[in-house]
């Protein structure tokens, strides 16, 4: 009974802290702009099955992608056991879902195997991060804290897997000594019950309980650390894939507010027909964190800083300042800085800084070729180019700021209908003497 009460209190604290964190994040989302509508749910489900659960994009790098897929699939399977632990803890039960019979045995056995596979994968990840020099884990945006963040999260996952295996092994030994029926199948941990050889039934049971509590408390701790870490990815990536833009990568979203203005310009009569009073005046493009559409912020929170985007960016490869990963990290950091101030002082609050310039320079923005290699590569369908173009839109339409050659290009299109300075009269010269 004491165990149940302690567990219930711990769970309540965990859920409470988590709810607080999430409610704050939801309030940050409320500061952002409306984007596309989330429709075509069937198609979204298919994309989620393929890209998230099938891990298809992570396999674009087959070797290391394989180990990530193991970790992902392992988490999915092990989650079942974690849910069972919560039920057991709350109601003072032991292996409460074992009534599922063969299905239970299968899932528990898979979880036991995956615990080992995940642990091995995590060790490989840690070795890569700590001892090998992997180019894509470096870059101007990768501060010391980014590396610590990664290693702490990986270490917690490793401890989670060790405690799970220890728990299973102690459980097996205890059932053996106490003459209890074994629920579930444990292909991996049955080989490590030797750890508890020579101990009394009571001591083994204590070990079992210690592993049980260690495992579940680590899960609770991890869950509450994640939203403050790049590993928020664990929660956000599957929804982020589900919420992907389904249109071709080449399509940029239309700016409705500009369409209204252009139509007024082209047809002055419309100015009288359609009063614009119901339309709030909105900044063109993105200058600061609150100007982004909600999906861009979702992208930023989902990013786990793997750097695959940056490693394929033609600008970055050739030594330019642009790094698509940095753009996402900057948006996240800027919202973290300005979001709380806006919640306190209103959306119009300004601290004299902005996402453009204080975080992302114009030089970075103008280096993008909109080739979409970053978006193509992102394992969770983050869309960097849209955000980059949104920031260009602010620079051009609100500040009239663009490289001189681009301004000349704009003038050419305006004056002679082509980006180069040629007369429309010469449009058919190419076809002479064909």
């Amino acid at each position, binding site marked *: 009974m004491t165990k149940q009460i302690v567990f219930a209190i711990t769970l309540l604290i965990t859920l409470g802290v988590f709810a607080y964190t999430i409610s704050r994040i939801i309030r940050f989302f409320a500061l952002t702009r409306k984007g596309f509508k989330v429709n075509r749910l069937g198609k979204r489900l298919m994309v989620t099955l393929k890209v998230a659960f099938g891990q298809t994009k992570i396999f*674009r790098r087959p070797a290391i992608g394989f180990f990530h897929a193991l970790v992902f699939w392992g988490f999915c399977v092990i989650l079942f056991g974690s849910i069972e632990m919560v039920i057991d803890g709350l109601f003072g039960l032991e292996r409460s879902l074992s009534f599922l019979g063969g299905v239970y045995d299968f899932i528990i056995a898979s979880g036991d195997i995956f615990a080992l596979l995940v642990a091995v994968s995590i060790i490989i990840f840690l070795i890569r991060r700590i001892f090998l020099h992997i180019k894509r884990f470096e870059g101007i945006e990768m501060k010391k804290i980014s590396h610590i963040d990664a290693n702490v999260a990986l270490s917690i996952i490793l401890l989670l897997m060790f405690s799970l295996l220890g728990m299973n092994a102690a459980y097996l030994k205890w059932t053996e000594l106490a003459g209890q029926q074994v629920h579930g199948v444990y292909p991996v941990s049955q080989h490590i019950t030797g750890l508890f050889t020579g101990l009394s039934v009571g001591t083994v049971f204590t070990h079992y309980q210690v592993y049980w509590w260690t495992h579940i408390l680590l899960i609770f701790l991890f869950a509450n650390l994640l939203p403050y870490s790049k590993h928020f990815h664990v929660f956000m990536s599957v929804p982020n894939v589900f919420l992907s833009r389904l249109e*071709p990568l*080449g*399509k*940029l*979203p*239309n700016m409705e507010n*500009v*369409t209204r203005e*252009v*139509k007024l310009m*082209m047809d002055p009569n419309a100015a009288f027909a359609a009063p614009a009073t119901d339309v709030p005046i909105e900044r*063109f*493009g993105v200058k600061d964190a609150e100007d982004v559409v909600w999906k861009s912020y979702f992208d930023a929170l989902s990013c786990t800083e793997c750097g695959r985007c940056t490693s*394929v960016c*033609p*600008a970055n*490869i*050739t*030594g*330019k*300042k642009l790094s698509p990963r940095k753009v996402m990290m900057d948006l996240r950091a800027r919202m973290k800085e300005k979001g709380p101030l806006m919640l306190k002082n209103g959306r119009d609050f300004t601290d004299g800084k902005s996402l453009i310039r204080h975080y992302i320079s114009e*030089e970075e923005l*103008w*280096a*993008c*070729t*909109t*080739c*979409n*290699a970053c978006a*193509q590569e992102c394992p969770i369908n983050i869309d960097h180019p849209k955000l980059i*173009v949104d920031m*260009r*839109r*602010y*620079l*051009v*339409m609100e500040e009239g700021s*663009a*490289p001189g*050659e*681009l301004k*000349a*290009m*704009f003038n050419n*299109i305006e004056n002679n*209908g*082509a*980006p*180069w300075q040629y007369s*429309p*009269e010469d*449009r*058919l*010269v*190419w*076809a002479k*003497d*064909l």
Partner: protein
Amino acid sequence: METRKIEIPVIAELFARGEKPEYLFWVGCAGAYDDRYKKVARAFTKILVHLNVSFAVLGKEETCTGDPARRAGNEMLFQMQALQNIEKFKAYEIKKVITICPHCYNTFKNEYPDLGADFEVISYIDIINRYIDEGKLKVDTQKFAKTLITYHDPCYLGRANGIYEEPRAILKKLGGNFVEMERNRSFALCCGAGGAQMFKEAEKGNKEVFLERMEDVMQVNPDIIATACPFCMTMMTDGIKYKNQEGKMQNLDIAELIAESLNL
């Protein structure tokens, strides 16, 4: 060999006579003004005539799609261009548009519908591929029999619109040897000219993007770099010059390769 002189049909003239072509051939600014790419527009026109496709061009009425303006952030200018073009297409009752430039293709196909456009957009790659499949376009497989060809994916056909296999299918029909670069299809490296980079100097870095791509090309050392985009063509042709490969390899558009294999 066909030697008949081609008179390009202009849509306004046809319209005045009450005639309507099946397709509008959208030449694009590069097709009209870029000296190198004009040859591609000419090659593709010859293919259309050879196939007896009913088409016309807008001629002096053609204007920029607005794509480079949009990608450079000038949404206002883009939409002005787009709305003008859409009105023009409606006035001429244009229902099908063929493009050679992938940037025009992408904007027409994916972005104009948001502004009320209602016409079908077809890449020249699709037209060529379709006529080959239907057996109406028969290439001379001897012409390139001893040629090694590689293909540089333009971002706006490839990643932007998922057109990877059609250009390869065409090139493989030419009868030569086809070789892939290490970075190909969705992994292909940009030439460096998209997103309005074509019209400006690159930001400071340690290398030009087109030279990085040219090194991919040189690893497979082809006789021909096939491209399907005017900007890629500018960059790859420059790459050949910068890397002193002028005697060894040349950069040709898929339309030029087909026209040549047809002896047009």
